[in-house]
């Protein structure tokens, strides 16, 4: 499961980075910072991309955003690794 989520998160980041051109996002790994490199519109775009991919892979809608999404101190999207962990829990709990 984690491998699948990791793959779809990185796919989404690479697609997003075609527009953003952030050097740090070219080859994302677990430690790559995420939230600090994205403006709020890009965070929304990232979430949209992840939700679409989850729907394609798992056949159901899973809400990835919550009330901490845009909170710099509490966001689960601080790094690629924390984003993958958070999204995996969401997919498991919404199953």
């Amino acid at each position, binding site marked *: 499961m984690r491998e699948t989520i990791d793959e779809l998160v990185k796919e989404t980041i690479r697609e997003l980075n*075609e*527009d953003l051109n952030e050097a740090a996002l070219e080859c994302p790994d677990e430690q790559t910072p995420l939230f600090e490199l994205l*403006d*709020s*519109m*890009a*965070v*929304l*775009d990232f*979430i*949209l991309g992840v*939700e679409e991919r989850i729907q394609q892979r798992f056949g159901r*809608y899973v*809400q990835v*955003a*919550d*009330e*901490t*999404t*845009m*909170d*710099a101190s509490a966001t689960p999207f601080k790094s690629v690794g924390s984003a993958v962990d958070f999204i995996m829990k969401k997919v498991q709990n919404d199953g």
Partner: protein
Amino acid sequence: MAEIRFDDAAIRGIVTTAGDRKVMIEDEAEAFGYDERTLKRLKRSMGFASRHVVSDPSVCTSDLCAQSAHRLFKGLAIDPSSIDALLFVSQTPDYRAPSTAIILQDRLGLSTRTVAFDINLGCSGFINGLYTAYSFIHSGMERVLLCVGDIASRFAYPQDKNLTPLMGDAGSAVLIERTVNSPSAFVLHSDGSGYEHLIIPAGGCRQPVTPESLEPKTFEDGAIRRAVDMFMNGGEIFNFTIKVVPAMFEELFALSGREKETVDYFVLHQANRYILQNIAKRLGVGAERLPMDTMTEYGNQNSASIPGTVNARLSNVYSQKRVRSVFAGFGIGLSWGACMVETDTIFAPPIQLYQKGQA
């Protein structure tokens, strides 16, 4: 907790007037510093495409509402002097004082026995205004005119790339009348701890207008604005919306005793595409029952976005049959509310653009 039910009031007509000038996002992109890729992203996630604003800088929200009200009176063959109360919900009144509602009382030909006052609210304003109107009917009145809207393009600084491309101008007029056996339910919430996240800081008594508050400044987020212009912390408003709106629907379903499957249409404040898609997916409701594209064509119409969506997207439905609706608004305050109401073949013509001389 404000949870209220009525069965003696109903909406008879809804009319909305939008700004006469259509502005395409492509025409504004350069002024906001959007490159082609940013523009593509914003269209996809936020739904930016066009918006309607007033072309004449002297036109006020009350002018749009007055045009709507005249059309409403004519369409329903209503004598304006039969109206008991006039509520004007807006953040863009004609003057700081007196209430614009009182000016409209005279302008629309209402009796001097009319109760008239303003309510200062934005995106939740239609729900709060409708609740107040239903309460007036429940207290013994026969007819209430609810006017809602904003010249939103005027409270956002023209070069504020975070807010201005969202904003559209509109004014609606809604007639509420005494009836029987028309069940409705309202849930209303306020949380002032978040007041700074969506605010016009200067211009009130707390921070009066000074030469400094009229100076444009560039902020950390790259947006340019003055202290007398609206500021929105988009991230906080996003978090707030995601947190409160789904929970509010659960409250409303419990209060009304009706499940979402029994609702014909969910007409929500048209904040942005992502928020509406997110709510629709959580509710398990498709775009055919939860319109999402009013903002894409007209911009965010603030308190007029719910009636604006009825007129822009569902005019035929509301005009031709009995409809059970959930209306929901959420935003500045912070404030949020929803209601479940029933309407039966009401006067709901397609949205009209402002025409000088029609108000």
